[in-house]
């Protein structure tokens, strides 16, 4: 029987899972890029990014390139948590099939 405690509650939320998936696909994403890709409101995205940052899953870089720009990337902890979460999801699917 699969141990559902293995699922990371922070990542398991759907928007945060989508954010983590995008961050895992590239080295870094700007706030505007994430917002456009996920079609999220500023407030909603900021809230989820704060949660992920507070948990140490995401790093935040603030720069000034003509205008202020915030970019996000997965930390080593975030990458490993995301990998483990995917493994857990695969385990659920496999267990049911077997």
């Amino acid at each position, binding site marked *: 029987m699969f141990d559902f405690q293995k699922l990371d509650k922070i990542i398991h939320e*759907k928007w945060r899972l989508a954010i983590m998936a995008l961050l895992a696909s590239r080295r870094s994403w700007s706030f505007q890029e994430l917002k456009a890709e996920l079609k999220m409101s500023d407030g909603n995205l900021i809230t989820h990014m704060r949660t992920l940052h507070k948990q140490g899953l995401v790093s935040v870089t603030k720069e000034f390139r003509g205008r202020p720009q915030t970019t996000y990337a997965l930390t080593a902890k975030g990458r490993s948590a995301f990998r483990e979460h995917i493994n857990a999801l695969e385990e*659920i*699917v496999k267990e049911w099939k077997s």
Partner: protein
Amino acid sequence: MDQERSKAEEDLRVIRSLMERAALYRAISAPAALVAGCLSIFAAAAIYLNDQTSVNRPLQGRAFAAIWLIVLVIAVATNAFFIWREAKKDGRPFISSGMKLSLRAIAPNLLIPAGVTLWFLVSGYKGAAEQELVVAWIAFYGLALLSTGLFAPRSLVCLGWAFFLTALALPALKNVAGDLPANLPNIAMGITFGLYHLIYAVCAWPRRRADEIEQFAVE
């Protein structure tokens, strides 16, 4: 358990689609392909009609190359405009990591056609080498598109193969069929840069689709 399993499957599917989509970069926008296709067909038709009428002598040599280079400049500018507009609409940078990656992949493939064009404009035109010029343009344009294959959508890769195979077929056609029409280079340009781009534009045109993420996130 059944519910958890289907949710896990759905989560994995969306993660996969998000990661794949994020890694894709379309170096040629569909509207730009439409403009380039129409422009190329117009240019090819104009050259063809000019060749058919006895008023002007057949368009060859530098004039032929110059017309197609003008079409190239307009098509590249149009593509840049549409990519810039799309980036602005989405709040992304115009020179994105995808664009840099594409340019790095495409650039080496443009060196040989640039060299052949230069040779043609300096001395090659005297030997009526339009076919060699056109084969180099079509083949290396196809190779440039194929070089973006790792991060390009399938339609762009298919376009690359269509160009590349056509370029391979042109000299073979000459060997097999013998005498071919003198305006074959112009016809080939019309078919490849005109018709192929139009087919690509139709296949790649952005369609309204249910937003997966929205469905994924709102339950």
